[in-house]
């Protein structure tokens, strides 16, 4: 039905969409986790915060799990290289994620304040750690990972864990953490009231400002200081997978290639910057729902900015740039991409439809009174 080249572009788009889906849907859960100890001044208030996302956070996190499965199926070399290369980082991510299902479910099952306080901090870590590790991973992937492929296509990684904490990646962490805090605060502003909603507004203000500053700085860095990558040989975009058949150049500013060729791409970063300003304004004017939608658009803008500048690169290699994994030479076979395409276009709309229904059922503000009335049911 589709030729190999088209399928590869579709699967690049699906990958970006899935990452957007995960970050928009789970980003506010992570943000609320990070804000939990700071915005919730009493046990009841913290329970209000947790219960705004209590019924739905688990479905949201599934975007990440599915992202793992999809990258395995559609981009096996990417899955293999990133997951094994960032081994210890992934381990830390897992340990952070471990704290969430148990944290949500177990926290309010016992009344002991020490028990609850311990779980609150666990949920804080469960929000912070994934946000940090995932932003760190993105920051490093933009710069390229130190791996190469041998002739059997075995991926050999030669970087250390602490190398991940380089200045640009740390700046990306600031962007990611501020973005999730803004998103989480925007959701809280929408779903809570009184003092909590006021505090959420303050959190929106500072996190949006930090986000705007850090995002502009990161953009300037990519343009003027960071090495980008460019394929210098002709590449057959419909050929069988062989990531060793091309040559790649690595030099400062190349990540702007796509922006030079398609100037309209610049709308993505502009959307993010202007959008974050609008989030502040809208939520101050009490258009909390619109502010949350705007905050989601900010996230999509950020991811499109990165994805749009890297295309067709998926995982550049610093060690041997010609080993870089690109859209044209790291995909699954045409048959598998096609099957997975049909599976996705049939199933994801269904997923989104019932997710929307669940959100509709659980709509409305969560209040301290709700918590007190449903002590034994709510998280």
């Amino acid at each position, binding site marked *: 039905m589709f030729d190999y080249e088209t399928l590869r572009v579709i699967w690049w788009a699906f990958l970006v969409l899935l990452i957007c889906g995960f970050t928009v849907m789970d980003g506010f859960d992570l943000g609320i986790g990070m804000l939990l100890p700071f915005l919730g001044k009493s046990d009841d208030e913290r329970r209000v915060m947790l219960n705004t996302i*209590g*019924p*739905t956070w*688990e*479905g949201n*996190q*599934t975007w*990440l*799990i*599915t992202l*793992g*499965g*999809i990258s*395995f*199926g*559609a981009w*096996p070399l990417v*899955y*293999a290289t*990133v*997951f*094994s290369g960032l*081994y210890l980082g*992934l*381990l830390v991510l*897992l*340990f952070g*994620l*471990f704290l969430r*299902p*148990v944290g949500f*479910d*177990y926290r309010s*099952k*016992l009344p002991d304040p020490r028990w609850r306080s311990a779980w609150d901090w666990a949920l804080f870590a469960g929000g912070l750690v994934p946000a940090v590790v995932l932003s760190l991973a993105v920051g490093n992937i933009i710069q390229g990972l130190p791996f190469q492929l041998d*002739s*059997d*296509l*075995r*991926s050999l990684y030669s970087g250390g864990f602490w190398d991940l904490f380089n200045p640009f990646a740390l700046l990306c962490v600031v962007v990611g953490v501020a973005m999730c805090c803004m998103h989480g605060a925007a959701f809280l502003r929408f779903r809570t009231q009184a003092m909590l909603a006021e505090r959420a507004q303050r959190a929106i203000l500072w996190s949006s400002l930090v986000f705007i500053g850090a995002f502009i700085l990161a953009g300037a860095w990519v343009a003027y200081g960071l090495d980008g990558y460019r394929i210098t040989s002709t590449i057959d975009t419909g050929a*069988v*997978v062989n990531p060793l058949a091309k040559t790649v150049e690595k030099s400062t500013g190349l990540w702007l290639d796509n922006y030079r060729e398609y100037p309209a791409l610049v709308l993505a970063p502009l959307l993010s910057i202007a959008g974050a300003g609008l989030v502040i304004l809208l939520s101050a004017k009490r258009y909390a729902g619109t502010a949350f939608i705007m905050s989601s658009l900010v996230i999509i803008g950020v991811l499109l900015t990165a994805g749009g500048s890297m295309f067709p690169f998926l995982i550049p290699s610093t060690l041997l740039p010609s080993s870089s994994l690109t859209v044209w030479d790291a995909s*699954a*076979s045409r*048959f*598998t991409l096609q*099957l*997975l395409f049909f*599976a*996705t276009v049939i*199933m994801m709309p269904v*997923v989104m439809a*019932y*997710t929307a229904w*669940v959100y509709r*059922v*659980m709509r409305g503000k969560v209040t301290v009174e709700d918590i007190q009335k449903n*002590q*034994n*049911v709510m998280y």
Partner: protein
Amino acid sequence: MIANEVVELSRLQFALTALYHFLFVPLTLGLSFLLAIMESVYVMTDKPIYKDMTRFWGKLFGINFAMGVTTGITLEFQFGTNWAYYSHYVGDIFGLPLAIEGMMAFFLESTFVGLFFFGWDRLSQVQHLLTTWLLALGTSLSALWILIANGWMQYPVGAEFNYETMRMELTSFADLFFNPVAQVKFVHTVAAGYTTGSMFVLGISAWYLLQDRDVAFARRSFRIASGFGLAAVLSVIVLGDESGYTVGEVQKVKLAAIEAEWETEPPPASFTLFGFPNEEAMRTDYAVKFPWVMGMIATRSVDEPVLGLKAILNTNRERIKSGMVAYENLQLIRKDKSNAPAKALFEAHKADLGYGLLLKRYAPNVTNATVQEIEAATRHSVPRVAPIFWSFRIMVLCGVLMLFIFAAAFYFNARRTAHKQHWLLRLAFYGIPLPWIAAELGWVVAEYGRQPWSIAEILPTHLSSSSLSAGQLYLSLAGFGIFYTVLLVIELFLMIKYVRLGPSSLHTGRYHFEQEGMSHV
């Protein structure tokens, strides 16, 4: 060359995390269906006690489900983190069911689990019932897709090696989906899960009955668990996994190892009830045998032979030699695609390429392997027999014990005297660990029995791992060990606490500890 230590540590970590995950999965599978049944009864009869049952067992379900999710994420990532070459080599096939599992099953269960707990006052009775059924459906669908993936590891059909991409690629989705091994595994595993959920409800209800508290609640729970459990345990035993052990060489190896069958017997083979497998001498000491039984179980016939291990090893030696030819010519066509004679030879020996790869562990150069190296690879081309032999027997013993418990529970239920049979109630309570022991050992038979392959006859485990250092693995093993132990202690603490509280934890005012003169535990 990958260090043996890294491979062994990666295997240990995979076994640890998979077995740990599998402490929670069977209960999720079974309990979600029991919840759906209980709630269906509630909707049909409108008796609030069935709603209380759904909510109380639902609380225990939630405590368990959280751990299942926690430990499941590890597994979704672990193929990439620890088995990167595997991920590249078979991702084109293996990744597909995993991706579909995420979209079709994980979203379903994790979206509706929230609504199950939070939706009681916001949904109509029927809507909530639908939610619970969708939750149960999601858990079983996830089992379906992961077992399709696993079935392919045991019996890889519908795929072909592509020398240009150096990996296996999918050729038929129907073959992958309707893989007979996957189908048998699915039925066996979900039925084992239903048995686990039933044993859990049966045993805990029995404990309440022994204490003479919340009797109406416990008797109803006991009744539902005994009926569903009896059906489930019968399916597990009748539709046993071993009926899938006749296709594909690795499955035959498992069957021979389960049976400690060294020589091929004339059909129908006898069943070794007991004995001590002696790996060195390749015989079973003090064997107690039953004629005919094994052949019937394994082949469902009286005239097909069950292959013995010695015969299998002889075949493997020949296939390793043939695999060397495939490997040699693969290197030639990788260098020069137009080398027609090499391509012809490769095609002729392609089916044995995996056997050639077995040599990588023993020979510096596969193409010039010595006789000793070929012998070493042959000897290790099947797993050790004793762990499989014993795991299988203990698993079956657990199954038979459970069959007895469920049958007795069902019988006395029908006579309405189950709550008076204290011996049975005690047996049901102390029998709670049985399904877990059986499930864990079932995993050992299926997955240890697959060694030395990660993908049967195609990719040796030894080649599958990531290029990691032993230090990284010690670190991750220690991390998992600590995290999982702490979480398990917390989970058990909470579970036992809520089991002791019983339905009083719902605060409806109707149950034991809420009556006058009763204090909380």
